[in-house]
């Protein structure tokens, strides 16, 4: 019985790895192919497609926009999320449960719907600048993750530590900076990283809120794919994978992957 279970777990594991990793390996391999279209197996070896990434303005622009938006949105969600999560964990129970669901609500809304509603309200109706609308959309994407992680961190934090600092003559505000912040820094950093990755990878919201000069990297790639099917896309995907890997390794080294997932 147990050996059967063992076998089943093994098979599921292998299948998962094959389905997850094989396409990724395929992408990496095809990015070095000499053929003008993505094909496998490759016939020759070249770095040309990597060079081609930088000749495309839409990619470099998209990358910069993506990084800037992801940074700003993660930062904003941390700045808004911190006092909100603090109030939620320290406040009256009934009301704070309600508020918590409000802050977590954006996860429930399909991102396409979120993107479209922001597009029609902010861009079409209120005539907001596209960049700000995009930023706001990504802020909404980041918010739930940030709040979740911060609430988790604050619930772990023994509030009597903070109280002890008050009794010893520290005001509430200064107690927050001296006691709360340093002790939930893991949650803050992991919330920031998760927000950043989510914002950077997002397509549904970005598609609706992009335009002539405002394009995120994923939407640029989509646009490019509509007219071309050459290994440049494989090359850029490989670069992104590498970046994400570095990112994750950094996070892992600093916090341990567990805290990032929980």
């Amino acid at each position: 019985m147990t050996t059967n279970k063992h076998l089943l777990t093994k098979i599921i594991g292998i299948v998962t790895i094959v389905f997850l990793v094989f396409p990724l390996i395929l992408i990496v391999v095809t990015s070095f192919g000499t053929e003008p279209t993505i094909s496998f197996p490759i016939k020759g070896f070249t770095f040309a497609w990597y060079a081609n990434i930088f000749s495309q303005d839409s990619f470099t622009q998209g990358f910069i926009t993506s990084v800037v938006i992801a940074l700003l949105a993660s930062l904003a969600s941390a700045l808004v999320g911190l006092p909100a999560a603090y109030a939620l964990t320290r406040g009256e129970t009934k009301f704070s449960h309600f508020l918590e669901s409000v802050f977590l609500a954006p996860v429930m809304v399909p991102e396409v719907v979120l993107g479209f509603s922001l597009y029609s309200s902010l861009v079409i109706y209120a005539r907001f600048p596209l960049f700000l609308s995009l930023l706001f959309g990504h802020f909404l994407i980041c918010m739930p993750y940030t709040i979740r992680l911060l609430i988790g961190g604050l619930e772990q934090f023994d509030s009597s530590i903070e109280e002890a600092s008050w009794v010893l003559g520290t005001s509430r505000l200064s107690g927050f900076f001296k006691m709360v912040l340093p002790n939930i820094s893991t949650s803050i950093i992991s919330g920031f990283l998760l927000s950043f990755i989510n914002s950077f990878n997002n397509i549904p919201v970005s598609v609706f809120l992009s335009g002539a000069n405002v394009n995120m990297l994923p939407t640029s790639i989509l646009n490019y794919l509509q007219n071309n099917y050459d290994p440049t896309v494989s090359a850029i995907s490989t670069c992104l994978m590498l970046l994400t890997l570095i990112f994750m390794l950094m996070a892992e080294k600093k916090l341990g992957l567990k805290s990032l997932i929980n």
Partner: protein
Amino acid sequence: MARLDVKHLAVSYNGKNKILNDINLTIEDGELVSLLGPSGCGKTTTLRSIAGLIRSNQGQILVDGKDISRIPVYKRNFGMVFQSYALFPQLTVRENVAFGLKNQHIREPDLSSRVNEMLDIVGLLDYAARFPSQLSGGQQQRVSLARSLVTHPSLLLLDEPLSNLDAKLRVEMREMIREIQQRLKLTMLFVTHDQSECFAISDHVAVMNKGVIEQFDSSESIYHHPLTEFVAHFIGYENFFQVKKFLKNQKYLLDHNLEFTAADSSPNVISLTIRPEDIEIIEKETENSDNHNQLEGKILFSTYLGDSYRYQIDTPLGIVIAVSGTDKKYLSGQPIVLNFPSQKVLGLSK
């Protein structure tokens, strides 16, 4: 250095069930009062209300006669040892102890000398550079104690500050607390559920049960004259005899038509009690004819306590616990007579 008055304090966490109910307490300037009670009776809640960490529903807290409800926690100059220690994990032991002094704008070299002196007193000078996570539970507790004492607070609230120490260190630390308290004339409220600890260091003791203070009295009074069954039980009285009727002049009627004389005389008495060590065991042969305040019984078994034997004795009034010296040992099954000196038999009310 202040006098504390707690008047009619009531607290409930969710507005429904009351955790504290009409708590009244006075600590004179420079006095140490212990709050004694079983787990969950509301000791921590009382301390937190006084510190201003939770809002009370009713009542007043006065320091030197002035209501402090509007003074924010950080301006009260209180000290507190938290039950969970609440050390600052990101600061070293030295920084933890120095934290309150820095808030009081104490500068070097005063700062270092006071911190070092305090660390020396609690025996942790060698651990000054460590972080709390690198200390044992007992060491953490001593850091917490040092951190609260070093600022010379006007009122010090201690929530079971010695609970995690071994027996020897416990006695050392409680004597240290008492010594500092008397030298600096600090006003202290000391929470414990260890009765010997509480009698050893306090001027007054408040015995608490289910959110009310059952008895607030000097240590001696509580020890020798507990007023209720709960208080008596909590401070080591083990024998309780139901009173059927108050006769007259300190005389009470018990089960089996036994008549006992007690030290108290009141119709409100519902049971009589006596400390195990106050009961006299007499051998059956030397029994005298006067069997007033006496019970016949049979030794069930004994345990050796080092300086005495502790017996369980089967009597008509149920199992009686008696403690007697080591000069004579009674054997299991031996019939004996128990004598209850009337001045040691106390009457308890509800």
